[in-house]
């Protein structure tokens, strides 16, 4: 818990995530090069860019699901090197929501939410259950608490995944295209949940192409292409008057 204290000392406006000169390679292929990004507490960032531009790789590096090759990543005052204690310390504070939900199919909805708080945070079963039900209520799915993931719709599953991550009481939430695997009619219920979360003050980094969502909550839009951050701006500016040609091309493709 030392890291926690260190993180708090920096005060509320300190950055939660700092990425400096980040580089990531897969074999000979460079997926990220010279990426710099800071995320302040309470800030909401939308990451966008063409497929394959390295968005997922970047946010997966932030909680060390991918190991970076060069540069620095500091999360909540702890630099991610190879040390497992640091990594797990960081992961505890970072919630992640995947495109493909990745719920545990053999556990009921509420058990999905209780597992990590009990095993990692050391909560008792009763405490974990109470917290899980509370957060499931927040994402409006508490009436399905005893069902299994396979019995839910995609939108419901993704809301459970959000609640599962929130149960760890993370300081920051990472979303990797949380609505891309959903049927159109389910996208809204998930976005609404995310908007609510944003309004509660959660620090968020979202990979998404939902422009309405970006306009509504993003403090900053970060545009990536071919492994680099090409442009950063507030959403109004970015969508109205992108500075770079690549961003214009990209916006042209997703709007039509």
């Amino acid at each position: 818990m030392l890291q926690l204290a260190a993180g708090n000392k920096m005060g509320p406006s300190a950055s939660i995530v700092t990425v400096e000169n980040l580089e990531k390679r897969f074999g000979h292929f460079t997926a990220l090069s010279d990426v710099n990004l800071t995320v302040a507490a309470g800030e909401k960032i939308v990451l966008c860019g063409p497929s394959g531009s390295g968005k997922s790789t970047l946010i997966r590096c932030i909680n060390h699901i991918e190991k970076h090759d060069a540069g620095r990543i500091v999360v909540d005052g702890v630099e991610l090197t190879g040390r497992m204690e640091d990594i797990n310390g960081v992961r505890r504070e970072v919630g992640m929501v995947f495109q493909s939900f990745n719920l545990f199919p053999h556990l009921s909805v509420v058990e999905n939410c209780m597992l990590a708080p009990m095993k990692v945070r050391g909560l008792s079963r009763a405490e974990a259950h109470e917290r899980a039900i509370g957060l499931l209520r927040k994402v409006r799915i508490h009436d399905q608490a005893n069902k299994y993931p396979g019995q839910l719709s995609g939108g419901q599953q993704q809301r459970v995944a959000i609640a599962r991550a929130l149960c760890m009481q993370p300081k920051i939430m990472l979303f990797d295209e949380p609505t891309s695997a959903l049927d159109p009619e389910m996208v809204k219920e998930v976005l609404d949940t995310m908007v609510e979360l944003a309004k509660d003050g959660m620090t968020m980094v979202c990979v998404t192409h939902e422009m309405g969502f970006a306009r509504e909550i993003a403090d900053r839009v970060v545009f990536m292409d071919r492994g680099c951050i090409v442009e950063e701006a507030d959403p109004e500016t970015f969508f109205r008057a992108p500075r770079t040609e690549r961003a214009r091309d990209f916006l042209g493709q997703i709007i039509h």
Partner: protein
Amino acid sequence: MFAVLLEQTADGQRYIDWLVSGLGWTLALAFFGWWIAFAVGVVVGIGRTVQNRAVAALARLYVEIFRNIPVLVQMFLWYFVLPELLPTALGNAIKQIPPPWGSFFPALVCLGLYTAARIAEQVRAGIEALPKGQVEAASALGLSGYLTYRHVIVPQALRLIIPSLTSEVMGIYKNTSVALTIGLMELTAQARQISEATFQTFTAFGAATLVYLALALIAYQGMALIDRAVRIPGTGRAENAVEPTATRVAQQVGSLPDAMEVVK
């Protein structure tokens, strides 16, 4: 350590000759048994999937019986029990077959029919794993039921199940050793005999083990070769796919003992 194998036996041979003769019986049993098993297995497997209720039920009965009785008990049924149940003259004629053929033929029939039941289940699973559109497309082209099976379903299903047939090939050569219980002097029996004659148990069993390992390797490589030879271009199995380096969880799924689990 294997020097003892070159020593003279009481009957003027060398111990290694015993092993070679045992290997011969093992191979003969596995090879001919396999073709019986394959032929019967494909027919029964197809029978499991046809519309005709009576045929399907018969095929199912075959599989149930031959798969659910231990192969050793089946061995005894063919060897001890069958001659007693046949008309006396015929039964006696069977009992008169001179050794080792008197043991070889029952063992051959036993292993062939037992393995056939297992192959039939693989064939059925392979057929059921094919997309429904294949049958629909075939009938849309006006192919008869027979032609659909002959040219569309069976060729695809057999390719699909080659990995699981590998384990059946391995199964049949390992099961040849069960024939020693009815007196066939195959490889394992010879190894035991050498061990008893020389007290060099380690050497005797070690030699047999090495031979079985070599057979396993040959069977495995042979089936892999066949798999590659008959593969339909453009339908490579998953090993060609890009493997994520981040975790060790390969997408590729090897051959499960019950390989159809993989095919889904």
